[in-house]
């Protein structure tokens, strides 16, 4: 059976969940996890699976945050992107004459992708008469055999003859600094757009490097609503993204040794409600190896299910990557404690960690009694 077919079986009857830029960017969050790689590769709706298992993910977005994001984006784009033009002029020296604005969405939803291609092609062909701002473009990228459609906020052109991805985010830049994890997430997401746009240019026979690796990040400045733009170099994120996409197309290795009929299907009824017995789904998932780490709690829909599994196994992964690494090859809590208090003899190769743990245990005992 070919791998693509195997992945379809894994997913079951539901159509694959489309990847958006955020989901693609998240592929790099824990590449060592086979369970996640298979679920993502097959396009399984992890959120639905986790809920059905009784372990809904702890994520949620406040309506206040959503409103704030929408209001801010509207502000940046208001009046022919007046704010954006100001920032591009200040930040990148955009010439005053460059103001042409194209709303790709004018053509209607189903033509957006084709229209984006046409406009970008025209811009790349004749940079002198090309537009400057392309609003609501729709790009695409192949992910594990499926096309993912991506919606960058704005694509800007005519900055030194190069395309720039504009990413609008509503977290604040205060005195020149922003939350580094928020910036990182924005950079990872923007890298997906850069790659998609480069792919498009290549398909059209243009130089993909016409897309700059510097993306324009637009955020509110300080405590006002006034937007401010910063350049963010996403070369690193691009490199990571390329690696992950290569991995996605090489899932065969992970499929080896799994039963041919293994599936994560939720067997939805006519109303879309899953009917598969929970225990059965859980068993199917446990056939694949997860690599739980506490970081998953903020990045993966399956986190509570995998944490529960790690608890049942008494895995030291629960305590974090660093503790796990420190313990060398000892993976279970009971084993580590056994080595520490001497009730368990070290297996071959465990002599050192056993010595270290015994030493630590001796010191703790000495100090606490």
């Amino acid at each position: 059976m070919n791998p693509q077919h195997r992945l379809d079986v894994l997913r079951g009857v539901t159509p694959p969940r489309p990847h958006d830029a955020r989901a693609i960017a998240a592929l790099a969050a824990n590449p060592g996890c086979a369970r996640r790689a298979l679920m993502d590769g097959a396009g399984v709706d992890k959120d639905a699976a986790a809920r059905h298992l009784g372990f809904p993910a702890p994520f949620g977005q406040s309506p206040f945050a959503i409103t704030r994001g929408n209001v801010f984006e509207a502000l940046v784009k208001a009046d022919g992107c007046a704010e954006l033009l100001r920032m591009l002029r200040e930040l990148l020296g955009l010439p005053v004459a460059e103001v042409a604005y194209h709303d790709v969405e004018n053509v209607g939803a189903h033509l957006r992708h084709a229209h984006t291609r046409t406009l970008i092609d025209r811009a790349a062909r004749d940079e002198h008469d090309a537009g400057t701002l392309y609003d609501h473009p729709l790009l695409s990228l192949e992910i594990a055999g499926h096309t993912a459609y991506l919606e960058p906020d704005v694509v800007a052109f005519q900055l030194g003859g190069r395309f720039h991805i504009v990413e609008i985010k509503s977290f604040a830049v205060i005195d020149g600094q922003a939350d580094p994890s928020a910036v990182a997430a924005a950079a990872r997401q923007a890298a997906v757009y850069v790659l998609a746009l480069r792919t498009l240019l290549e398909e059209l026979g243009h130089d993909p490097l016409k897309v700059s690796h510097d993306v324009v990040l637009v955020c509110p400045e300080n405590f006002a609503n006034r937007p401010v733009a910063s350049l963010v170099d996403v070369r690193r994120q691009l490199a990571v993204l390329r690696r992950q996409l290569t991995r996605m197309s090489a899932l065969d290795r992970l499929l080896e040794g799994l039963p041919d009929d293994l599936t994560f299907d939720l067997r939805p009824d006519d109303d879309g409600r899953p009917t598969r017995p929970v225990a059965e789904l859980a068993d199917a998932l446990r056939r694949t190896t997860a690599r739980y780490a506490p970081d998953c709690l903020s990045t993966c829909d399956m986190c509570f299910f995998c944490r529960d599994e790690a608890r049942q196994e008494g895995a030291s992964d629960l305590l974090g990557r660093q503790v796990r690494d420190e313990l060398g090859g000892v993976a279970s809590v009971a084993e580590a404690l056994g080595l520490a208090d001497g009730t368990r003899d070290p297996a071959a190769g465990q002599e050192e960690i056993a010595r270290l743990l015994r030493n630590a245990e001796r010191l703790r005992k000495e100090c606490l009694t």
Partner: protein
Amino acid sequence: MTAGPEQVIRNVLADLPRHRGVVVDSPPGAGKSTLVVRAAAHIAATGEPLMIVAQTNEQVDDLVTRISGKHAHLTVGRLSAGGYVPPLRMLELPGVRVGTRIQDLGDPDIVIATADKWAWIGGRVWPWAIVDEAYQMRSDKLLRIAGLFERALFVGDPGQLDPFSIVDGDRWSGLSWDPLQSAVSVLLRHNPDLPVHRLPVSWRLPASAAPVVSRAFYPFTGFRSGTSDGDRRLELATGGMGTPHDRALEEAARSGWALLELPNRHTVRTDAEAVQAVALLAGRLLQRGAVASSEQGERPVTADRVAVGAAHRDQVAAIRAAGVPPQITVDTANRLQGREYDVTIVLHPLSGRRDATAFHLESGRLCVLASRHRHACVVVARAGIAELLDAHPSAEPVQLGVPVKFPDGWEANQSVLEHLSRHRV
């Protein structure tokens, strides 16, 4: 065609009076010290006093010895802190005086001290300064001494380890004067027009190593080896016994690189098997009477020409305790910076790790370890590093306004590993 090394040095000297600051990037073994000595003599010849700043006492002593050896007519003052005991060889040098105060030194052509010592000096301004290992110097140190000179030559290796602090410095990130950035980064952010030269040729790294190190750690600038294939030879006088260790040494002697791969296993940092392997390699290298021949002639590889490098201090302690011949230098990457040996034996920072941290992936660390040798480098590692890199999550935070540093540690590690895999034993 890029300029040859001699031309670069001439360009540097010519730029000195034209700019307030001149920066010279020097990849490993590219003649940084030679340049410093030449520039020192060049400036001294104008009759104007010169101050030289280095980062450690060893570096200062080394420069004093080199300058005095090459230009015996120059008077050199070696300024030192109270507890410092100068090595005997230095006290015997003509024209060299050692003291803890400027007044003790007479009025020499050149005054040399560490950046820490210079920070205590005041009340005088030198027309010229040379700052050595400027990429390893934290910018707050430069801030303390920059008032002492009018113009300066900054020399250093951008590929090595960045300065660090024990406290969290996020509050300064993005500032052009972030005190945790290197002296050169801060200098160039405030003075972007200063000329930056690059020494193009490594005299240390052999033809087998320069392309590997250049590709992995200097992807945009690059450098080449000053010698060609066959100019450097490493021969083992006595025959081997076919053990993996002997075969690794033979591979290294033949090709300049060897990877002694141990079975894949997650271990504690002081992995006994790996530590033992490193110690054994060091011992066997001496036993087998290695002889190095190069453009400098033929000489036996004695213990002082061999170094063992590791990432952590506890690993260094474990390796020392495992019976490495006492004259062999065993140290961390931090402390091996700027040093040179014929053969190095390296415990790979990622060996036996299950998860790589930013510390382990820092490209400068591997760069230092992989670029100390004139002839050969033997790396000891457990199998599985490729998988570990593959599984490495990337969620590095991004600070606004901080230039991205290249090369990326992941890419550099991958590049070196790929090369090593061709020399696996």
